[in-house]
């Protein structure tokens, strides 16, 4: 089960301070999309929105991205 959205790593992930790469394009597209959005809008509201979306994505696809999730929270 993924850590809740208030875990501090989520902020670091969506703001690019916790770089995590994968061999899977879908995961990398998510991280890239977060980076592009954060570059355009660094407001707390957008960071919160990116965390919500990333959390939802990784909750839904947890079984596909177990290695990536382990890297995020290592």
């Amino acid at each position, binding site marked *: 089960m993924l850590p809740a959205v208030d875990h501090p790593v989520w902020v670091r992930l969506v703001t690019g301070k916790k770089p995590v790469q*994968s061999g*899977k*394009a*879908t995961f990398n*597209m*998510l991280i890239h*999309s977060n*980076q592009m959005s954060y570059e355009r809008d660094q407001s707390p509201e957008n960071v919160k929105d990116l965390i919500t979306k990333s959390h939802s994505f990784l909750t839904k696809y947890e079984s596909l991205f177990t290695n990536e999730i382990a890297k995020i929270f290592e």
Partner: protein
Amino acid sequence: MSATVRATLHSISEVQAAIAAGESLFLAGSREALSQLPRGKWVGGSICYFMADEGGLMSEDRIFVTRVPEFALGAEAVDYGPENLAQLYLDAPANGFTFVVMPAATEVLKTFAERAPEFEGFLMRPVVGWVAGVRADLIGKDSPVVVNGQTGAIFEDRCVALHVSLPDNKMADLDIVNIFESHGGDVIRFEKAGFDVTGCMINGRPANLADFLSAREVRTEFPLVGDYNGSSINVSFQKVDEVAHKVEFYAPVFPGVNYRLAKPVVDYERAFAREIAASDQEPAFACNCILNYLYGGLEGKKTGHITGPITFGEIAHQLLNQTMVRLYLRDVG
């Protein structure tokens, strides 16, 4: 039903029989072939190039058939134009995937290519498919079409989608196979998204891309490779206009992405075989790019064991170029 049609090329009469038997199908064939099909649970688009069991080939009287799997809970065909394209992801099932086919060189494709990453549901709801085209010698003379088999409607300016719902123990997983990698040299960046560009930044300095490519005598059959957090996403060159100092692409470039020229690939067949060798499972669907077919001389050759339509653009969440796309349906739980 599963014995009726497997994912490969079939005659028109075989596909007519499968539709009559009530199968849900995602089809690729010539306009003439698709026009001979009855109404039923299918969507399709025009293309006449295929990676078949016997290798790459062109056929206007056979149709590549991808069956919606029997374990799917449902499949709904819907068409979209630029005005309601954002609805594509919202209509997609909470668990499942969406097959989509878009006609080349249309506003709906441009809208999808430039804006899909902004749409609500992007990445969360897997969208996979391809861009319909025409025979290479008819480019600019004939129009690609897509067909909603449920209504019989044929479109030159809209896309059609088949939203497929999956049970909780199955999950769609999209994968790309890119035989191109960055050359590792000059970094090219763009100020805005678009299919054509003049100015850009190269290694942090303002430059004209067409002039840069001409001066370097760059082989434009190899794409620009964008770095998406370590994944290589290609953008293929359509035209370098040295008079207008403009470069046109088959997919948009985006700001915020570091692009580099691709390393040349000599043997496409071997390159695909090497990339595909590690695959653990048969994909439920795959497609590959017409540029790989043409530039790589893939007629009569194979891309590993993978079969599927050879298309004018590939879709795995977003529009891709010179890429093989694969859809896997994974067991979960």
